[in-house]
Structures are given as structure tokens and as C-alpha cells.
């Protein structure tokens, strides 16, 4: 519970997202706007999920006991459903905006749907990660001993890694989801929903961090690979990029300087 824990966990959880923001989004004002709108949509979905949970709790009159745990689980699952629903709503909104833009100005290049998918995924992810972790982070600055009652002393570290994986997962889910919507491949949407439910459900076995984290990271890697191929990447382009032989990429970078 020191500054080291605070900064360490903060950078573990938000470092990649910050890097992605700085290098890909901060330079273009339009992307920043779409990121914030995405974050807003996630926030609204959270609001509805909390409303649902609150109403469920008042209906069962706030009795203590196992029913609270079941209600919480139900709340989590419903929340996942609502989040994916709002992702779909955001997709529809972006689609309309893109069409409007094309009619106004056919020669200017509007952001492509893939880019918007990435930006919206990042917006969802950042908001989700921040809401999940920031209170824990601010507690870590204060005095205290972690795990004094027999809980795991790795509470903060585990939460930080989980937050990181959730943010990245949201990015990949966004890309896959939007691509599925574009190509009308509803199976993609279903897979995104199911993996989201799976990841949330895995956190129910919370104190056993090993299984929880490892499987979630595995899912993240799989989703990442899928999103890479969906977004138009291929083994060849990856090889060219890694060996710095991708001429288009190099030229593009030079031009922007």
C-alpha cells in the first residue's frame, strides 16, 4: 500500500490503453470525439444494469444471505447483455453518421468502419477499466495491509491484470462485433456475447486467481488473433511489418512527418 503499488498497478492496468490512445487517437480530433461517445454509451449501459440490479434487490427486500449472491450473479450477466446491446446501438449510430458524412462530402475520406470499431472498442474498454479499477487504485494509496483477514495479498496486482485484459478484450470485441454487423455474420455477435459472458463468469471463482487470469488471457489472445484477421491483417503483412519491410507502412509514416 505505497506509491509503488499505486503506480505499478496503475501502469499495468492502464499503460497499454494510454499508449494506444496517445499513438492512435490523440492526434485526430474526430477519433477523440468518438472515443468519448463510446465511453458514454458504456456508461449508460452500466446505468441500466445498475438500475436492474437495484430493482431486483428492492423486490427481494434486501434480505441477506445466498440470495444476494445470486442476485449479483444475475446482475453481472444482465449487465453483459446490456453492454453488448449498447455496442450494437452504437454501431447503428455510427453507421448512420458515416452515411450522412458520405452524402455531404464524397471526396473527403470519412473514418472507416474498422477504425470506428477500434475506437469504439477502446472507448468501451477504457471506461469499463476505469470504472472497475479506479476506486481500488485510490484505496491503494492509503494505509492498510492487504490480505490481513486471510484473503490473497495479491489483490491489487490481480485486479490490475484483470483490468488490463478487460480493456484489451473490449477493443478486440469491438472490432469483431462491428465486422460481424457489417457483414451480417450474426455468429460473430453471438461469439462475442458468449465470450464476454464467459469472461465475466470466470471472475465468479475469484479467489482462485490462477485459473481465472490465465484462461482470461488465453481468451484475449484468441480474440486478438481473430480480430487481427478480421481487421484485414494476414500472416504476410505481419511478417513484413515485423521485419520493417512493409513499404506502405514506412511511406505512410514518413509522409505524416
Amino acid at each position, binding site marked *: 500500500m505505497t506509491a509503488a503499488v499505486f503506480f505499478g498497478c496503475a501502469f499495468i492496468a492502464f499503460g497499454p490503453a494510454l499508449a494506444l490512445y496517445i499513438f492512435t487517437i490523440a492526434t485526430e480530433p474526430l477519433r477523440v470525439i468518438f472515443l468519448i461517445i463510446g465511453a458514454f454509451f458504456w456508461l449508460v449501459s452500466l446505468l441500466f444494469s445498475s438500475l436492474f440490479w*437495484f430493482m431486483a434487490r428492492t423486490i427481494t427486500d434486501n434480505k441477506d444471505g445466498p440470495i444476494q449472491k445470486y442476485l449479483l450473479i444475475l446482475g453481472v450477466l444482465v449487465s453483459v447483455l446490456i453492454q453488448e446491446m449498447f455496442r450494437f446501438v452504437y454501431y447503428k449510430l455510427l453507421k448512420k453518421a458515416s452515411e450522412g458524412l458520405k452524402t455531404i462530402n464524397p471526396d473527403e475520406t470519412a473514418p472507416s468502419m474498422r477504425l470506428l470499431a477500434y475506437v469504439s472498442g477502446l472507448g468501451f474498454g477504457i471506461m469499463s477499466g476505469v470504472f472497475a479499477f479506479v476506486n481500488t487504485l485510490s484505496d491503494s494509496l492509503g494505509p492498510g495491509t492487504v490480505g490481513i483477514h486471510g484473503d490473497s495479498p495479491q489483490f491489487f496486482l490481480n485486479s490490475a491484470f484483470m483490468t488490463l485484459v478487460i480493456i484489451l478484450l473490449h477493443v478486440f470485441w469491438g472490432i469483431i462485433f462491428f465486422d460481424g454487423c457489417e457483414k451480417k455474420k450474426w455468429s460473430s455477435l453471438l461469439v462475442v456475447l458468449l465470450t464476454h459472458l464467459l469472461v465475466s463468469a470466470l471472475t465468479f471463482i475469484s479467489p482462485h486467481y490462477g485459473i481465472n487470469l490465465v484462461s482470461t488471457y488465453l481468451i484475449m489472445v484468441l480474440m486478438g488473433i481473430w480480430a487481427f484477421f478480421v481487421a484485414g491483417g494476414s500472416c504476410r503483412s505481419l511478417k513484413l511489418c515485423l521485419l520493417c519491410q512493409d513499404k506502405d507502412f514506412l511511406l505512410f509514416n514518413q509522409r505524416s512527418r
Partner: protein
Amino acid sequence: MALQRLDRSPLGWFFRLESNTQTALFQFQNTRARHRRAHHGGVPWPSPSGFPQRSQDSEEDLDEDADRYMCSGVPGQPSGLEEELTLKYGAKHVIMLFVPVTLCMVVVVATIKSVRFYTEKNGQLPYGAGREQSLQPAISLSIYTPFTEDTPSVGQRLLNSVLNTLIMISVIVAMTIFLVVLYKYRCYKFIHGWLIMSSLMLLFLFTYIYLGEVLKTYNVAMDYPTLFLTVWNFGAVGMVCIHWKGPLVLQQAYLIMISALMALVFIKYLPEWSAWVILGAISVYDLVAVLCPKGPLRMLVETAQERNEPIFPALIYSSAMVWTVGMAKLDPSSQGALQLPYDPEMEEDSYDSFGEPSYPEVFEPPLPGYPGDELEEEEERGVKLGLGDFIFYSVLVGKAAATGSGDWNTTLACFVAILIGLCLTLLLLAVFKKALPALPISITFGLIFYFSTDNLVRPFMDTLASHQLYI
């Protein structure tokens, strides 16, 4: 002003900012049009908003009024070439407003979270040298909110806060009307003097108190000579930058700082529930004052439009940047400091009307070695937002940060809500093309998200976090 449907998709606005529009919620400085005498007759876009309409009190004046919004009416019509440019610059202006609003909120939230002084209620004034200074704003503000909130019942407390709000709003309405009257009868010296008094108060007294409290919090000792030197330099440079000439970035920084200071004063001295009711009431007042035909702000705007006068510099945040062809067009006296947006004829006019130049827009000088663009004019539009908007946004976010539970989720939710409200307001501006207030949408969203996040989302997220569940 003809209402004009831009396009089918409202979000398309972000790609296109209609320059033909007669209004500006935010002022768009169309400097290219200025160079085209034929279109504009050399008249720059006046920025009528920004009059101190609210409090009379010497501490409070400056910014709370400075406007919620700007008004309308570009005298000339820019050519079609403008419209293409707007496509490129539309989203950029939104970001040019996001950044200062975010900075102001960050300063306010950081202060609230670290300096205990601004969350202590009046009854717990700290002992020591700061006490006398901190009593003074408390006394003057409590004139506006005389009904106490230390009542036994909820109903009584609510009633008291509503009464406090009524008093505050009526003071504000009276001030606005007084200001409009002053402006109509051209009592510019009076207004100028008033503005200078209020910025003096903010830049010196409030900064002194703020600095004192920050030093106390971090237990840093500072001797009076150093303190005097610091505050004097800060305040003097601030007065020069805001009321006269100075680098754009410095002026922007000072405006953000005084908005933050003002917001902190409000957060400290307004009673809890009254503050929320006042926020709501101010948004409604804004809506009424700008949209009703006899609303004071609308009359102000129209008067300023008729006279083609610029607005006072101390009340508007401007982010305009301009590069022009040919250094010859620059006013030689402002080389290296400030580039004047006016044509020489307009300069004379403004000298006549105020007796001293008052330049609402501050532009960066072109870079001396600026390559290439000598052959073509390259201009950018600037965006303006009234300081009152900054203040009330920061009050909302600051209060969300101040209320007890130390919950960051509420603060962040309010922050995102306000930014979205700002986006939506700009969007509505493009769709309706009339003068629109900047407060209502953002404050409404902020209030909705504050109360719902505090009561619904917080217990949910806390329970999830304690069980380490992730959604």
C-alpha cells in the same frame, strides 16, 4: 437567420461545421472573411457574450456571468470555399473546447481532493492568518444564501435550498438586466471598471487564499516577501494578459485558472443542496434568457450585433489561431506579442468606442520562419466559450468529487456527461442555427449522471469490486 437542415445525419455535423450560420454558441472567428472586404466589410465577428450579468458582489462578478454562450450573427456570408474548410475544422474546434474544460475540471478536482479547506463548511474555518480572508467571502456569499441547511427535517431543508436558489437567481437576473441597461446606454467605462475590479479581486485575493491553503496542506513554509512577490507577479501578469495583450496560451491559462478559482469559491461557500438546485435553476435561466425574445441575454446579443462591437476580453475563453499572408497586414505595435484580428479601419472604430483597444480575440503571431504559405492565405477559425460555462461545469464536477464517499466513479461519470453535453450542444447549434445556451444540456446530463451514479451505480460497482467480479 434561415433555418437550414444540414444533412440527414446529425452526427455528420462533426464533419462539417456550417459556417453560414448566424449563430454561434461558440464563436467562430472567420478571419478569412475579414480579409474579404466584399463579404464582411471588414467587420469581424463580434462576440457579444461575456458580460458580467450575475453578481454584483466584488468577489463574484467576473466569471459567473461570463456567459453561457455566444450569440449569433455573422454579418457577411462566407463563400462556399469556407464550407469545405469547415469540414476539416469541425471536430477540431470541439477538441479545442474539450481541452480547456477538462483542464479546468482537473484543477478543481485535484484541489478538492487534496486541499481540505475547500470541502470544510463555514463553521469549521481554520484558525490562523487565513481566517479573516476566508470569512469575508463566506459572509458575502451568505447574503445570497441566507437560509441555513442545518434543519431537522428533509422538507425544511429542501424548502430552504429552494428559497436560497430563488434569491440567488433573482440577484443574477437583476444584475443581467442592469448590465444590459448599462450596455444599451453605452456606459462602457463603468462596465470596464467593474470587470477590472473583479479580475483584480480574483487574481490577487483569491489566489492568495488558494496559495495559502495549498501551502498549509503540504506543510510548506513560505515567507511573506516571497509570497508577496509570487502573488504580485502572478496577478499583474494576469491583469495584463487578460485585459490587454499577451501570448494566447498565457491568456488561456489565466482564464482557466480564474474560472477554477471561482468554481472553488462556489463549491466552498454554497450550501450543499442549494448548490444543486442553483445549478439546475441556472440552466433553466440560461435557456430562458437566450431563447425568449425578450430575454436579457438575447437583447444583449442583438444590441452588440447592431453595433458590431467586440465583447469585453475578460469574460471569454478564446482559442483562435490565425496565420495571414504578408507581415504588412500586422499591426506593427503588436509584433511578437499579439496579432490583431481587425483591419485598420476597425481598429479606429474600436479605439473610438472604448477609448482603449479591447480585443476579444487573441491570436498567435505567425511564426517568423513560417515556410511556404506566403502564397496563399491560410486561416483557422477560433472557438470561444464563456467563462461562466467553465465555472458551472467545474462546480458540478467539483461537487461530485467533494461529496463524502471519495468515489471517483461519480466524478468521472459527471465529467463524461458534461463533455457529451458539450458535443450535443454543438451539434444542436449546427442543426438549428440559432443562438443556443451552452449550460442546459451539459448541466442536465451532469445532474442526471451525478444522482444516478451516486445512488445506483456506486453500490453496484462497490459490491462488484469487493467480490472482484468484472462485468
